[in-house]
């Protein structure tokens, strides 16, 4: 993520520029002149969003003075491979457009080196979730083309295949796919090998984090009782700010929602004061990040299967947090997923935000007060000015199905049971 303060005098100009990248609200022109997203074949999702936080006054409930922060522009992309390579590619293909956009930010002059500036303004997430690590845009597209080809073949030949046992259906379709591949009509590329450096880094992270936690454990055990005692007190006294949002705010968000089967979500909030809340939040985010990287099942965040990418970023000396995600379905069904399937995790993170519905032992209650929670989140949701998805029409579950279809076609042996499951995916 690239984060830069907007020059107040240029805000209106920036908003116009960003709007010019869309065909209509919520519908980006993927080939727009400023940043032609479609040209970047490693880019899954991207967004430009102005972090215009209307809830800064919430800190008053803790008797704290209202701080003024710069108005930030955030630019996010979810990419395959090396992020630095992507930034370099961006600077090559979209230099003019990016310069035009970033020139509305503080300190960006016609002489600024674009790549250096973007690196300087890069802001790492505190926690990151990827639906299926290692699944590249190319792979997604090739597998979608495979599914389409199979659908079309089945549309014509279903009659001949309908009575056959699954293994026979599989064999026939495998033959078809191989013919198509040989004729160059279908491509199922081998994955380029994961760089060794990545493996080493990943392994170090896998082992390193638990080792550090283990090393710190005597200290953690020592302070835990105090932390828990204090947290319980705070939970009982922290105020809830969960009133219904202004209809105009809600309508403005809705205009750019539900333009595809997938939607974007951006929400910002101020953190509750005090080191207890800060440390708890950092611990939880570390846990989520670690779990998302090493533990959770492919295609699932806990029980949630509708999220493509999500990240949590802390800003301004960890005083504020922003949550970005790309999810399938409407915001209603997204909230429903959170509340009914992952409420505990949600509570653990978002209870650090001022005004969140009251939790109990950090993971209980909270979002179970469903309407308060929906109000809270809607109030903190920001309109996203520009949002790009590389594969419209496809949900995360579609991607998983297509992956399973492809993997079986490449597996060396198919049992009767596996063939049945495979045929059921079609």
């Amino acid at each position, binding site marked *: 993520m690239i984060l830069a303060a907007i020059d107040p005098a240029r805000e209106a100009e920036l908003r116009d520029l960003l709007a010019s990248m869309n065909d209509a609200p919520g519908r980006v022109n993927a080939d727009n002149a400023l940043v032609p997203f479609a040209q970047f074949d490693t880019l899954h999702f991207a967004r430009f969003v102005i972090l215009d936080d209307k809830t800064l006054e919430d800190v008053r409930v803790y008797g704290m003075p209202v701080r003024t922060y710069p108005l930030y522009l955030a630019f996010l992309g979810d990419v395959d491979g090396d992020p630095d390579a992507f930034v370099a590619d961006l600077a090559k293909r979209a230099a003019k457009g990016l310069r035009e956009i970033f020139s509305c930010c503080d300190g960006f002059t016609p002489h600024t080196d674009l790549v250096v500036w973007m690196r300087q303004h890069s802001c790492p997430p505190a926690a990151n979730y990827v639906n299926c690590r290692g699944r590249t845009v190319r792979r997604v597209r090739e597998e979608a083309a495979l599914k389409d080809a199979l659908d079309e073949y*089945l*549309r014509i030949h*279903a009659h001949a*295949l*309908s*009575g*056959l*046992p*699954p293994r026979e*259906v599989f064999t026939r379709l495998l033959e078809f796919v191989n013919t198509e591949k040989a004729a160059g009509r279908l491509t199922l590329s081998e994955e380029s090998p994961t760089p060794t450096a990545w493996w080493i880094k990943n392994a170090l992270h896998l082992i390193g984090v638990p080792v550090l936690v283990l090393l710190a454990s005597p200290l953690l055990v020592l302070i835990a009782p105090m932390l828990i005692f204090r947290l319980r007190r705070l939970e009982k006294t922290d105020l809830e700010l969960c009133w*219904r949002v202004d*209809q105009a705010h*809600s*309508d403005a968000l*809705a*205009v750019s*929602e*539900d*333009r*595809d*089967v*997938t939607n974007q979500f951006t929400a910002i909030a101020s953190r509750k004061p005090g080191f207890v809340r800060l440390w708890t939040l950092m611990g939880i985010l570390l846990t989520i990040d670690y779990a998302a990287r090493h533990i*959770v*099942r492919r295609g*699932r*965040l*806990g*029980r*949630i*299967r509708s999220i493509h990418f999500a990240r949590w970023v802390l800003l301004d000396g960890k005083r504020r947090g922003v949550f970005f995600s790309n999810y*399938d*379905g*409407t915001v*209603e*069904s997204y909230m*429903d*997923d959170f509340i*009914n*399937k992952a409420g*505990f995790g949600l509570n653990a993170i978002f209870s650090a935000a001022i005004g969140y519905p009251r939790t109990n032992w950090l993971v209980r209650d909270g979002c*179970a*007060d*469903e*309407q308060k929670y929906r109000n809270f989140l809607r109030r903190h949701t920001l309109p996203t000015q520009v949002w790009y998805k590389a594969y*419209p*029409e496809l*949900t995360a*579950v*579609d991607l*998983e*199905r297509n992956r*399973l279809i492809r993997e079986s076609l490449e597996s060396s042996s198919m049992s009767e049971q596996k063939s*049945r*499951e495979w*045929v*059921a*995916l*079609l």
Partner: protein
Amino acid sequence: MRLSEVDYSDVQGLVRFGYGKMKEASYVHLRVKDPASARAWLRSAPIASAVAKTPPPPTAVQVAFTAAGLEALGVAPSVLAAFSPEFLTGMTEESRARRLGDVGSNAPAQWEWGYGMSLPHLMVMFFAESGRLQALIQDTRGNAWNAGFEEQRWLGTAELDGVEPFGFRDGISQPQIDWERRRDVTRPQIDYSNVVALGEFLLGYPNEYNKYTDRPVIYADSSSAADLLPAEDAPGKKDIGRNGTYLVMRQLRQDVRGFWQFLNRQTGGNFSEAERLAAAFVGRTRAGDPLVPVQQQPIPGIGPDAARIRQDQFTFDKDSMGAGCPIGAHVRRQNPRNTDYPGRPTGLAKLMTLLGFGPGGFQDDLISPVRFHRILRRGREYGSDVLPEHALAPAPPNDPERGLHFICLNANISRQFEFLQNAWTISPKFAGLTGENDPLAGIRETLPGCPITDNFTVQKDGRLRHRISGLPQFVTLRGGAYFFLPGLRALRYLAGAGASDT
């Protein structure tokens, strides 16, 4: 704390009864012409309550308001603003229409009523035993009615003896309201239950989250509010929502001839095959039998009536792949009969499932727990019926329109009706499917991100699925609106609105 009993005399009868014995019904849409006269009529209107009477009365009158109607009656803006956003902005708001799939031929601009000036202020519903409807309507209207209201349109209904226009038995599955407030919703629900918390269907009571759904509550600062019941969750306040609920109405025109003619073409003119395919679309046979076996184990809220058990005591747990009842079949989309956890785990398995390490099947967790998305259906058919066997003939000139005045009751429109419509009825991505939506009630318009919506898949056990494409749209939306169906004390309060000004 002892939970107070529901005061049936304060609830409109439609919440408790379908008025099935009253074979005749008619709905009138009204606009307020003169608020004072309108309020006068409403204050003395003979609105039937939910008190059970023996013998049951031969007639009933019910009333519900749109947000524009409450405003026209002079309800204070501060009170009005506390109703739900869906109710206030209405069904036709552009983003909402997109979410509901009300686009193209179903778009509000195409409707016969409900859009712009054709949106009613209120609806009065008349129910009567055969032969008594006209007299009821005559007796109910009067000088105050004539002075207070402009009659926009009358929507007649037809008695089709429990069979909806496509020819299927209807109204078999309904949630059972927990009137006694015995249901414990504080723990995750592992087994499917048909008993649903009172607060899902009536405002002022805890819902399936054990919370009180937002609604207008006020300080009892005026004498007109004194009669209102207190808000259980806000001591010292009076509850305008209590014993009321939201009523969703959609007029659905059904193309019965198109439906059977399409099925007949698909099955090469073999009518019994066409009926079998129709049953796959619906998820029940024409007689109403489910396509999966009923279970021995009782389901709370289904029974003790043996006929009901025979047709409704089932779930899709043993049919996760859809080989018995297609995954996209109408009844399966409308009520997937699932629970809070797939596979009903207990103990450690439950914890593992909670953390995302459950069985991990492709179908797991694709459908939201149904208990948060139930609706109480109270609709009636309209138009003359045509038997499926006769529907194959070309339509005669002036073939009358037929369909369903869909009416449902729910306390939270966005979580119940709208979720059901968006995520289950019209979603081409329901339960991991793609390229198809509800074969009966769905739409075949291109939806955002879904260019293809006209398939239907019949899954097979150990064989390649049968996929039908090119489904026409069988149901077209002709009108719709969100109403508030108040409790009777609230009705008197709302009818007294602005009374001091006159």
